[in-house]
């Protein structure tokens, strides 16, 4: 990915597909401007879906799809959208995409649909999606908007996956449904067993994990809220 940076800037009018500027769209939201840990957006779904890895992964993929497509659509329409109704237009586009995802899940991943459909619907109200549409896609070209949406969604995804990892491991003793605690207990033989922590399966557990992640991250980056 990093090889294409040299050719750009000077004379060529065409910018590299992943020029330095564009790379920042993707890398920035991962840590330095993470939607969850820095902007503290999208917390409700981060709490709700993260009890287990598998639904969290499906949720992450859904959000990535919705954000990329919504950013692209809004960016393509940006010069025609009347400013007075732009929020409604954004809402209509996001809601349609979310409904699409929900229908697809119902058809092809019914088990996930049963578990997630409430939360997939809530992607509509996920502040990250509308925030990026309003702040970025309305004023930038389609390709840049795709990268921006992808970056923000990825920043959201890795945080909820990290939270889900710890919550499932500590709360249910498993990762992706594979019983890790049982395997560990088996190594030490009879009478040894790891206890799961019930706190981790309740939303409180997500708050604690999320707080710890934010703490570690801000200690490393030195970020301070103004």
């Amino acid at each position, binding site marked *: 990915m990093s090889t294409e940076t040299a050719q750009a800037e000077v004379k060529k009018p065409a910018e590299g597909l992943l020029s330095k500027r564009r790379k920042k769209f993707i890398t920035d939201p991962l840590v330095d401007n993470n939607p969850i840990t820095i902007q503290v957006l999208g917390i409700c779904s981060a709490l709700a879906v993260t*009890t287990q890895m598998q639904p969290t992964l499906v949720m992450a993929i859904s959000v990535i799809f919705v954000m990329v497509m919504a950013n692209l659509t809004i960016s393509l329409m940006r010069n*025609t*959208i*009347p*400013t*007075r*109704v732009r929020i*409604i*237009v954004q809402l*209509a*586009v996001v809601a*349609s995409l979310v*409904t*699409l995802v929900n*229908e*697809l899940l*119902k*058809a*092809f991943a*019914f*088990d996930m*649909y*049963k578990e997630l459909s*409430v939360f997939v619907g809530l992607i509509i109200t996920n502040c990250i999606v509308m925030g990026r549409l309003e702040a970025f896609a309305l004023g930038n070209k389609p390709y840049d908007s795709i990268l921006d949406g992808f970056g923000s969604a990825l920043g959201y995804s890795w945080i909820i996956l990290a939270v889900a990892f710890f919550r499932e491991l500590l*709360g*249910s003793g498993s990762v992706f449904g594979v019983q890790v605690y049982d395997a560990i207990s088996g190594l030490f033989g009879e009478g040894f067993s790891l206890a799961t922590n*019930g706190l981790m*399966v*309740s939303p409180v557990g997500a708050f604690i994990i999320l707080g710890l992640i934010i703490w570690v991250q801000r200690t490393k980056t030195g970020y301070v809220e103004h």
Partner: protein
Amino acid sequence: MQQSNAYIITFSVILTVVLGLLLSGTSQVLAPIQKKAVELDTKKQILGAVLDASQLRNMKADEILAYYDNRISSKVVDIEGNLLEKDSDGNPIIAENVNVAKNYKMAPEKRQYPIFVFHKEGNPDAVEAYIVQVYGAGLWDEIWGFLALDTDLNTIAGVTFGHKGETPGLGARITEGAVQNRFQGKQIFDDSGNFQSVAMQKGEGKDYSSELHKVDGLSGATITANGVNAMLNNYLRFYKAYFDKLKASKSSEVVALN
């Protein structure tokens, strides 16, 4: 021009039509696939009452459907245990399509009660278990399930529960195999034949293996457990007339054989 009312209205109308067509189109295209997914899910739940969760997980969708067709026959009865074959419009009633949530809103006397008969392998005449459908309310939202009774129509062969919105890690545990297995071998009638139902007890981790009508409860989810108890108690009563008829016809068969 972009800010004129006419432009805004035109824009909104076009957007609405385009998005509307897109969504209704997808819905149309996906409807048959979704219907199959729902059907598979229902059959999985029904089979879940008699099969191990791990066994069911290892079967592919086609295998489950084939297995279901092979081993399960279904019928619908009313509260008096009479067979229902056609609804008021003369359409045949299919047990798998009975909407238990819709029925729940009607008076118990008017509801349709599906029965799924689990046949022995390789012998379609011999019955291994009777599976009935149950439905009720948990703490937050609806709960439902299927309960399989042995041929004595007393001993529980297995249960499977589903829920819409119980608390993850607490009430939602009714979907776990470990919790559902606690019902196995319990009995719904006492020795003298009086209906007792089965009930999850308050607290968790106690040994109820010698008690035939008590099941170890759910710590931290007493209201969900009570919901399960009420659901089982209600629906087993609704099915009782059918069970009685079944028992009567059986004993007469035995007499006939003698």
